[in-house]
């Protein structure tokens, strides 16, 4: 055979493999409102940047007449490419091939590209669309999942791992996304659960739809398993592209610096968006927008535990991780969910050299039997742990209330924040004036002719004396009380001077965070 013939033969083989599950299966996929695996990769990556590997991999199953079946690429597409010029490793499960079911070779393709990503120190993106384990392959498919989970764990904190759920991702399979950094879901397409509606019905007799059990909205709003919610696959890919621009390739690098842009201080004027009365609500995201480049804030887990806000923005072109109490929702209290949400994000930023800015305005922890019984002690401790553990530059601005345990938890000086600023509206105290006055002046109030009058007066006295930033400033717990309009200036300067921060920690194998 001549080279030409050999090349033609190669093209023919490729053509066959590229058909995936064939026209009928592709039609079904499209009818479900989904793109095919290859279309997804092409839509996500830069044009012509995708290079596919292991196209000719065949499955290895021998039982149940499987040896007679041909599964092109064994139901998963793997390769490398770029997103806005950033190199990435990528895999996409092909639902048109045996329902994207995971068999031995399918898993081998995934673990191979994962190993590549870890070695090449570049982000890994996994697009999940699979019916689950390939039952015909028995324990080999279980082994495959285990191999993937193990690598997810090894890669955690070394390279960014992004999971995109574009179809079912059920049973054990869903633990791979759970081990990765960011999970993207699309309304009506993504379905994630450990035991599906059918199992629940047979075992428990409870009826529930897939959507209500583990649809995109549930995973984004209720469980917090997903970090980004999109209405369509296109919107989802745009979100991924945006996220990739904010994060570094790996844990030895810093995120790419972008050209500096000023915030839109006309649209986000502090005096218009920020009420000084601590009982009045406002959207803390507007305060972030008033400080950051181009007033652009890229929120993470927008729909989950909305009493805390997390996300990325840039200061002078540099990526910053923001954590802020949200007075708009539940007065911005800390609770089980918001602690989990913030703690994980803090650890992410610390692992990937992203400086942290914390904006504080909270009345404390949420009281309640359900909170206590849900383990608010253990969950709340995660925030203390992750802030204390973090060695990236940590800058805190106390906007209004910072009472009690909440003050300590929100990256206070005591957890080794590098810089702590306060607005003149800040109130830093061991507890709210009302409660504090009741305890301190208990006997005076009780002995008074008019106890209620006395109580009110004492609360007023306490407020005047302690509900301000100056007591904490007098002890040096706050570095500077600043004009709110100068916040950006102070932030940029403190990030600049901390750019070579090097903080040693005691040598250990790893800590034991209150998981």
């Amino acid at each position, binding site marked *: 055979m001549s080279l030409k013939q050999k090349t033609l033969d190669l093209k023919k083989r490729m053509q066959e493999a590229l058909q995936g599950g064939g026209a009928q299966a592709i039609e079904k996929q499209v009818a479900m409102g989904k793109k095919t695996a290859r279309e997804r990769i092409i839509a996500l990556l830069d044009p012509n940047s995708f290079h596919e590997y292991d196209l000719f991999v065949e499955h290895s199953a021998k039982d149940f007449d499987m040896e007679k079946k041909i599964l092109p690429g064994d139901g998963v597409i793997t390769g490398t490419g770029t997103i806005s010029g950033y190199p990435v490793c990528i895999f996409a499960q092909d639902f048109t091939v045996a329902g994207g079911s995971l068999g031995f070779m399918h898993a081998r393709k995934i673990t191979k590209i994962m190993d590549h990503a870890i070695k090449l120190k570049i982000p890994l993106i996994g697009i999940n669309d699979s019916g689950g384990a390939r039952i015909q392959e028995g324990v080999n498919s279980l082994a495959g999942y285990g191999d993937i989970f193990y690598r997810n764990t090894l890669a955690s904190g070394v390279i960014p791992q992004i999971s995109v759920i574009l179809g079912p991702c059920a049973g054990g399979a869903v633990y791979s996304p759970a081990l990765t950094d960011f999970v993207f879901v699309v309304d009506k397409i993504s379905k994630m659960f450990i035991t599906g509606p059918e199992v629940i019905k047979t075992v428990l007799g409870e009826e529930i739809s897939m959507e209500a059990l583990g649809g995109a909205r549930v995973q984004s709003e209720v469980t917090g398993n997903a970090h980004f919610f999109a*209405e369509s696959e296109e919107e989802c890919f745009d979100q991924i592209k945006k996220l990739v621009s904010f994060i570094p390739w790996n844990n030895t690098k810093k995120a790419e610096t972008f050209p500096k842009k000023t915030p839109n201080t006309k649209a986000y004027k502090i005096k218009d968006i920020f009420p000084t009365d601590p009982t009045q609500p406002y959207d803390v995201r507007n305060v972030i927008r008033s400080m950051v480049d181009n007033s652009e804030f890229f929120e993470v887990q927008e729909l989950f535990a909305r009493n805390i806000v997390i996300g990325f923005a840039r200061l002078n072109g540099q990526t910053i991780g923001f954590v802020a109490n949200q007075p708009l929702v539940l*007065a911005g209290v800390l609770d089980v969910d918001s602690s989990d949400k913030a703690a994980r994000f803090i650890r992410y930023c610390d692992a990937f050299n992203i400086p942290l800015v914390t904006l504080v305005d909270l009345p404390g922890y949420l009281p*309640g039997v359900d909170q206590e019984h849900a383990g608010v002690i253990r969950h709340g401790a995660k925030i203390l742990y992750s802030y204390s553990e973090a060695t990236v530059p940590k800058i805190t601005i106390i906007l209004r209330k910072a009472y009690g345990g909440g003050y300590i938890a929100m990256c206070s000086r005591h957890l080794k924040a590098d810089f702590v600023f306060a607005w003149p509206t800040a109130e830093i105290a061991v507890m*709210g004036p009302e*409660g504090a006055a009741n305890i301190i002046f208990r006997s005076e109030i009780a002995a008074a002719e008019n106890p209620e009058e006395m109580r009110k007066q004492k609360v007023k006295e306490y407020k005047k004396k302690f509900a301000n930033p100056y007591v904490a400033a007098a002890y040096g717990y706050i570095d500077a009380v600043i004009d709110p309009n100068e916040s950006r200036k102070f932030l940029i300067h403190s990030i600049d001077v901390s750019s070579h921060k090097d903080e040693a920690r005691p040598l250990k194998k790893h800590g034991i965070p209150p998981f």
Partner: protein
Amino acid sequence: MENENKEDKQEFQKFTLDGYTYKTLLTKKWLSHKSYVEKDPGKIHSFIPGTILKVFVKDGQKVKKGEQLLILEAMKMHNIITAPMAGKIKKLYVSTAERVANKHLLIEIEPDEIVESSKSKKIKIKRK
């Protein structure tokens, strides 16, 4: 984002904490949280959803502490439910082959001794 949250459309509400009354939005989770009810030690609930495989006792029957009351089959496991204290079966709420949800009331026992609630329980330490 297009998909505005339902909570955004809701009016600001009052939320009192530590002497301050805040104006804020309340979440679905917060609004749907249940108030705590103290447990009655005589009431035995299922701890897992499943099927009642066998019932060993009848209404009015005297039982000793640790005596087998029924078998609750769940996840292919036969869970033996035993009496947490000595007493009389006040009422049997389930029968054989019945499917029960989690936290379903199975049996009510009238204890021989009045079991005080955990709050007022006195702990005696015996010294040898």
